């Protein structure tokens, strides 16, 4: 059956400027450019990833939306009709990549931050120390001290393992398989350079990255790919992945064609076999099962690594997080519905889960109400776009934040949402050697590290304008946030006042 789908984009080539170098033809990994006697775009294949336009030496390429492919209709958007046509032709589920792109309210954009005027001086971060250092891990409710024979004070409390961050922003879990080894390399090198962490995702850790262990979170997900004793001990922290913001309640599927030699070794599965991650962990059907896995990992690591549990933000997230803390987790990571993925059914990505702002506020408050907030660090993920979002997340109660999509954008991603095709023209979400090669890990690491440096500088400016010189004075300090254009119930859930009201 010939497809009736109209092309989504129109690629315009300015033939007066085009010097016929064919660079665009080579750049396009989706078959969107042909060359006969001149460059001929295949509009139907274009995904608007902008690779060709970015690298055209004459800037002769412009990609536009195919405006009137569908007649205007407020109820029937072009996307809706396109999806129906696709399903009518194939009878399949719609696949999607990245995070939820729909027009739900972005609560971050309705939050504003306080600043000092007169009664308390603001602090200049260029002149005064400004501290972002953060420790992740379980904290006791209080410390005990003893006095030794010389009358000197000693710490009598033994602290659970703590992971130090120089910047409260870490890289999201993205598996080797979903992304390329060069992406992993970029992330690991940048994490080391910036005093942060990268997360292996569920696909194991390539041996090339073992030297970066102090800046790596190793993940244990439902497929248990690449999980072995050495893996669990080659890290700063272990994370049990229960859920992912982009696909709560859904497992994963890495098609066999992506499982080459290196992935096969790393994931410990035969070359060419599909890597299927079940929706639930088949040894975790209850909170007490989770507790067993947490303690199994603690045993395997001799209680030297904090164990994190990552869940997606769903309706009952506060009670679930409380259970996770009581089950023994040292860190809870919450991933909101804007969080990204390499592949998920579109219906799940676009309609399941709740905004991270509300989930974070609810969890932080619940843990405080129960008097167990100190028992675990709280990490917030899911579509954070700027240092402003990070500052707001920390003010709502997060110990640290996670960036995934923002990190990928820094190394080339244009959010074309075609990760699941394996054709990523930027060398990120692909295993094709000729595409992977496009991402230079040195350059990638530099760009990622630059991003963290830039956001750190901005966070310090925010702290300084708030008149505080340490991140812990912002953490959970919701008094320094105000809501603009939020309804009363949302304000209540966020634990903040509307703008215009003083302290």
């Amino acid at each position, binding site marked *: 059956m010939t497809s009736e789908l109209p092309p989504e984009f129109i690629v315009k080539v300015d033939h007066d400027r085009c010097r016929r170098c064919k660079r665009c033809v080579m750049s396009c990994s989706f078959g969107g450019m042909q060359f006969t006697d001149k460059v001929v775009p295949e509009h139907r294949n274009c995904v608007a990833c902008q690779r060709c336009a970015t690298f055209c030496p004459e800037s002769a390429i412009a990609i536009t939306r195919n405006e009137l492919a569908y007649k205007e209709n407020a109820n029937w958007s072009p996307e809706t009709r396109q999806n129906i046509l696709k399903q009518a032709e194939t009878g399949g589920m719609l696949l999607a990549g990245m995070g939820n792109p729909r027009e739900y309210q972005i609560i971050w954009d309705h939050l504003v931050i306080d600043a*000092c005027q*007169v*009664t*308390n*001086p603001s*602090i200049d971060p260029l002149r*005064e*120390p400004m*501290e972002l*250092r953060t*420790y992740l891990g379980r*904290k*006791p409710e*209080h*410390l*005990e*001290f003893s006095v030794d024979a010389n009358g*000197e*004070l*000693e*710490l009598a*409390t033994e*602290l659970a393992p*703590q992971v130090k961050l120089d910047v409260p922003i870490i890289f999201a879990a993205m598996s080797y398989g979903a992304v390329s080894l060069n992406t992993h390399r970029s992330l690991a090198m940048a994490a080391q350079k910036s005093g942060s962490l990268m997360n292996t995702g569920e696909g194991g850790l390539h041996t090339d990255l073992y030297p970066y262990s102090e800046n790596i979170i190793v993940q244990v997900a439902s497929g248990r790919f690449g999980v072995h004793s050495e893996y669990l001990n080659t890290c700063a922290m272990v994370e049990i992945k229960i859920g992912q913001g982009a696909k709560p309640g859904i497992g994963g599927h890495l098609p066999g064609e992506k499982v080459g030699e290196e992935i096969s070794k790393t994931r410990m599965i035969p070359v060419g076999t599909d890597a299927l991650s079940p929706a639930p962990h088949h040894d975790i059907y209850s909170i007490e099962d989770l507790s067993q896995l947490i303690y199994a990992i603690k045993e395997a690591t001799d209680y030297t690594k904090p164990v994190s549990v990552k869940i997606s933000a769903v309706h009952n997230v506060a009670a679930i997080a409380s259970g996770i803390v009581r089950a023994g987790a040292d860190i809870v990571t919450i991933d909101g519905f804007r969080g990204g993925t390499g592949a998920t059914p579109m219906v799940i990505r676009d309609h399941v889960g709740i905004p991270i702002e509300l989930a974070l506020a609810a969890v932080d408050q619940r843990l*405080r*109400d129960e*008097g167990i*907030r*100190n028992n675990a660090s709280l990490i917030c993920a899911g579509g954070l776009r700027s240092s402003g979002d990070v500052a707001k997340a920390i003010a709502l109660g997060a110990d640290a934040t996670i960036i995934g999509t923002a990190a990928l954008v820094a190394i080339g991603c244009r959010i074309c949402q075609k990760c699941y095709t394996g054709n990523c023209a930027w060398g990120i979400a692909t295993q094709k050697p000729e595409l992977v090669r496009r991402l230079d890990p040195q350059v990638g690491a530099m760009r990622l590290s630059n991003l963290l440096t830039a956001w750190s500088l901005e966070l310090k400016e925010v702290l300084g304008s*708030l*008149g*505080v*010189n*340490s991140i*812990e*004075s*912002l*953490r*959970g*300090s*919701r*008094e*320094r946030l105000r809501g603009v254009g939020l309804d009363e119930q949302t304000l209540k859930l966020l634990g903040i006042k509307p703008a215009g009201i*003083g*302290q």
Partner: protein
Amino acid sequence: MRCDCYIPSGCSISGIISESGKRLDGNAIIRSIALMHDRANGLGGGFAAYGVYPRHADQYALHMMFDNIEAKERCEERFKDAFDIVLDEEMPTRPGGVYEEETSGRSAEYGTGSQPITDPPILWRYFMDVPEDKTGFVSEREYVVEKVMQINSGVEGTFVASSGKNMGAFKGVGYPEDIGVFYKLDEYKAYTWTAHGRFPTNTPGWWGGAHPFCLLDWSIVHNGEISSYGINKRYLEPFGYKLELRTDTEVVAYLFDLLVRRHKMPIELATKTLAAPFWKDIDRMPDREREVATAIRQVYGGALLNGPFSIILGHSRGMVGFNDRIKLRPMTCARKDDMLYISSEESAIWEIAPDLDKVWSPKAGTPVAGVLDEEVE
């Protein structure tokens, strides 16, 4: 009468301690705080005094403020249930009294009429024992804290100004020197005095909102603003503290209560928890010291006080002055024999002690402690 809005404020503070336990009358501390008249604006002043009730040293002395007689009756019902009242009496006051020197008493500053102190609430003090059979599973002091929290948050028109033993808070709306005269502080003798002159940036007219803030033996006078108030409040709430006074200073009193009384931290370490050293300095400390400082910052991040402040903490065994981490508010100290003076301005010390052994301005975050000799009762 209670103000519902948050009131940032600037201020002056002063403190005197005789470590050998000599009891001084209130004239010196009044003169010291009066010299800093211009740092206040007549909207709040107060004093804390330790050693003032030697005859009732074993009883909790509750200084109370009531909006009206009904509030007093409601509160007394609670007291009768919770405590054995040994003595209760009206606070001695000198209505219409004015500080004589030129720094104050200028009628122009008080609007019409020359009365510096107007509309005081009903001021009453109670000396009370805690009946042993009432405390249940909590300690006596924990029991008193609970009752204070319940009264401040649950009995309308009632405020507990102080609740320690052998100490009291004397505070109200007015310039501090006039408040001192009003409360007849020249007739009290104490080995530790602290004082506060307030410059709130709007009009509260609420006596309870003046400094010092007290809980049990703790008293806090504070110049500055706690910019980390939001998280300090949220940190304290799970421990059962009710932050009802809408001022940042109360978090300081409660943090000391939590760290020192409940978590058994030495006072000096508690000041280094609230005004913690910077990581750059911690990283260079000797091993053991670094271990302590690192753990404190990891565990007590929610207790870190940030923003500009100088604070004098009074307690039953002495007083401690300390600054914020980058010294955004002034604080000067001086010693003469067994006396320690701490003040916002050096002049306020010279004013009352013209012959000093040593005068210095402590570095940011460095606590200065005056400690009563052990034999002083």
